[in-house]
């Protein structure tokens, strides 16, 4: 008995060992994905070189396995993909852990200096289409359903050339049904006015730098209404979107006030963020300041990059997480539904200290360990050229923050596996269950480096449930639908269908839930964009459940 006590004592005195629940392994090369993000930098410090790297995860051939599309840069100052090294790439998931480069067959090598991607079935034909943003020109690729895509940009009226400002530099895009008419409309974030031939020079002659965003004029974002006949109409002016001049980076969409209309959040670079409240009838009002979401807790604008707009505290209201630059701390806004709508919980949730030394790009709020609490992933990298001032390399490892469920996100990156510690100039990140095991994997691009595929190998036997929605009156992808899952223990989880996640990137369509120990969903409630409510009961866990709008 004495011996037992002596043996037990050190265990009791030791601090509780907190094992990281979230773990990843990097599988890009062994899966057949070899993709280097080329920005065409040749010592002229063009601003566009910093911003490349959007990625999309979507099932282009409807085989049930999620494929990967990676955007790429171009030569400078020509802005031409004059070598295959600049091609955008589509990798088909062979559903066996391997991928095949099908870019040329699919016709997706692209043109110009690409930035981001947004995937959705805009023509409701059952095949996911692709919008690619870029410098001076955007592209819409219609999925023909036979493994190939057709460039329909001109017909659709989506080149991105602005009636007042001319050619635009678009970073990200979001598919969103703004008027709930069953047709997906398109929101495009535009960054700044830029021309390679008039690039300002910053820094001393012997030590040039990339210029601060203040060296460039802002630009309005654009909203295009889907006419349902393969064409779009620019409604930026009439909708009120064009009134707000910003420096748009990431975009994410959600119905923050529960009025059944999807709203739009835009992370701006070194300016206040925008929250476009959907008033209905195709009208929007920018309400970021009044909603408490435009600035950080100190009332300062941050260098906003990526954003995810998702309920991280399971209260049924979508919250917001934003990546930004070193010294700012990533922002966390909790939607309280009060006045103002959002509380800045960056400090309260432990993010001020945990992220102040980071610069972030892609971000996603997903339940990586399926414990019923959504965690946060961020793709990190400081701007190149600043390492001598920051006294740290610009390449950083990515981060994963575990939601402890008590209002704290803990940085568990160090325990997320050896591969997860690899530093890089990371940019875009897209999220999907690539191997069908119910755990959310991550695809991350890296400037002047290889794309990484982080396969989620988190241990444990937590259960999960995913829903693939097919709209009938609503848009076919069900984008904008909100889903709640009630567990047998009475706990309710919330999520919504969106592909607009992070920085210049697009994530899988299925909406996912970690059920923890729960082996079934007792009740599932879907609110479709059409307004229809659908209720399902007793759905067993650990499956991708397909739901058709009644």
């Amino acid at each position, binding site marked *: 008995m004495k011996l037992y006590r002596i043996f037990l004592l050190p265990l009791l005195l030791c601090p509780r060992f907190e094992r990281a629940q979230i773990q990843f392994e990097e599988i890009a090369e062994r899966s057949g994905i070899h993709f280097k993000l080329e920005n065409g930098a040749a010592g002229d410090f063009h601003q566009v070189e910093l911003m490349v790297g959007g990625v999309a995860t979507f099932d282009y051939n409807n085989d049930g396995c999620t494929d990967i599309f990676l955007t790429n840069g171009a030569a400078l100052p020509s802005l031409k993909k004059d070598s295959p090294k600049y091609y955008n790439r589509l990798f088909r998931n062979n559903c066996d852990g391997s991928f095949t480069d099908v870019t040329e067959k699919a016709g997706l090598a692209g043109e110009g200096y690409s930035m981001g991607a947004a995937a959705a079935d805009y023509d409701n034909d059952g095949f996911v289409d692709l919008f690619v943003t870029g410098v001076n020109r955007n592209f819409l690729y219609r999925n023909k359903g036979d493994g190939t895509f057709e460039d329909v940009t001109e017909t659709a009226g989506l080149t991105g050339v602005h009636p007042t400002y001319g050619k635009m530099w678009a970073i990200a895009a979001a598919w969103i049904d703004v008027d709930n008419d069953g047709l997906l409309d398109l929101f495009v974030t535009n960054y700044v*006015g830029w021309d390679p031939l008039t690039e300002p020079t910053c820094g001393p002659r012997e030590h040039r730098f990339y210029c601060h965003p203040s060296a460039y*004029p802002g630009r309005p974002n654009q909203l295009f209404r889907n006419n349902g006949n393969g064409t779009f109409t620019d409604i930026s002016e009439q909708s009120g979107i064009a009134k707000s001049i910003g420096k748009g980076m990431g975009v994410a969409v959600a119905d923050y006030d529960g009025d059944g209309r999807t709203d739009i959040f835009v992370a701006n670079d070194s*300016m206040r963020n925008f929250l476009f409240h959907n008033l209905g009838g195709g009208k929007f009002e920018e309400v970021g*300041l*009044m909603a*408490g979401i435009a600035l950080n807790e100190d009332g300062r604008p941050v260098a906003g990059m990526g954003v995810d707009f998702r309920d991280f505290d399971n209260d049924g209201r979508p919250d917001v997480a934003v990546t930004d630059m070193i*010294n700012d701390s990533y922002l966390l806004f909790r939607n309280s539904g009060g006045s*103002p709508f959002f509380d800045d919980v960056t400090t309260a949730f432990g993010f001020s200290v945990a992220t102040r030394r980071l610069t972030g790009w892609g971000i996603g709020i997903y339940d990586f360990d399926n414990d019923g609490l959504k965690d946060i992933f961020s793709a990190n990298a400081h701007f190149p050229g600043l390492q001598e*001032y920051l006294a740290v390399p610009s390449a950083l490892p990515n981060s994963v923050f575990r939601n402890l469920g008590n209002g704290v996100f803990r940085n568990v990156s160090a325990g997320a596996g050896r591969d997860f510690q690899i530093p890089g100039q990371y940019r875009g990140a897209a999220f999907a269950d690539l191997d069908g095991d119910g755990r959310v994997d991550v695809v991350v691009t890296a400037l002047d480096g290889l794309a990484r595929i982080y396969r989620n190998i988190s241990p444990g036997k937590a259960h999960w449930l995913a829903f693939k929605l097919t709209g009938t009156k609503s848009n076919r992808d069900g984008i904008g639908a909100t889903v709640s899952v009630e567990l047998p223990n009475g706990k309710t989880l919330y999520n919504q269908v969106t592909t607009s996640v992070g920085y210049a990137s697009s994530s899988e369509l299925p909406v996912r839930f970690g059920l923890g120990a729960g082996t079934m969903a007792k009740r599932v409630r879907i609110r479709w964009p059409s307004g229809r409510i659908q209720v399902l009961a007793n759905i067993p866990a650990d499956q991708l459940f397909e739901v058709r709008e009644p």
Partner: protein
Amino acid sequence: MHIATFALVLWSLTPKAQAPATMDRVEQLQIADSQCRLKQFQEAEKTYKRLLAVFPEFTEALAGLGRCYLTMGRASDAARVFSEEVRRTGEDRQANRDLAHALVDLNQFFPAEHLLKTLLAGDDRDKESWYYLGVLMYQNGYFGSADADLEKSIDPFSTDAARATQVSIYRAVCWVHLGRTKEAEALMTTLAKDPNAQKDPDLLLVFAQLLYETNRPGMALQRIDQAILARPDLAMGYFWRGKVLYSLGRLQEAATAEEKALQMIPEFPYPRSLLVKIYQAQGRTDKAAVQAEWLHAYEEHQNLGTPH
């Protein structure tokens, strides 16, 4: 004979003529320096200028005038004077360092950095240059390099206690920003007992920030109140007071603190951002909207950049 007599006269006159003048200019320089130390700035400036009008090549007077300008907070004038001194003296280390000091005060980042790094390339034991390089990095938010540079500026044999304290304050702030919160807190706790530091508002506010960010808002408020006591015109102190009170749900007190900050500096945007939230939480939506409108207009003027 005539020439010899003339030479003799010249010989006899010259020392007599020069000796009082030499004494005079040194004495006058001492007077000017003393006036500057006593913060009799107008008189000091006049004395330096009078001296330089009579002895335009008197570089010590030029240096004195430049340093006095720095004391006055007139860094632009100081930089102009030190530039002239550097032009005359060439590679004189002190003159270049003085110029760098002025450039740091002006936050002319690239010229200051270039000059200081050139000085340090010539002698990396130059503690003074490390100090100014550290300050330059600090005030531009490059806390990693600021901390490293400031560490190199520490002279264990120095008798300048005020400088040593200032370096410690800067480093403590750096550590907060670098996430070295435990070390920062330990150093700040030590500094709080140092008479040279315990009333430093920057230190007290960053200490408050650290306490706030580590979920000790009550202790943060104490530090903020100390800072305000030390500097009753500290608008940033009132801003922080309101911020912490808002987090505690003490809305009316938070509003009062932010309004006080605005009274001090009407163009101060941060309190307005918080007032938008506080007024809404109080149900005073119209007042919140006025603040939001002000912030919209402010940003349009400040941050949109200019086309080129």
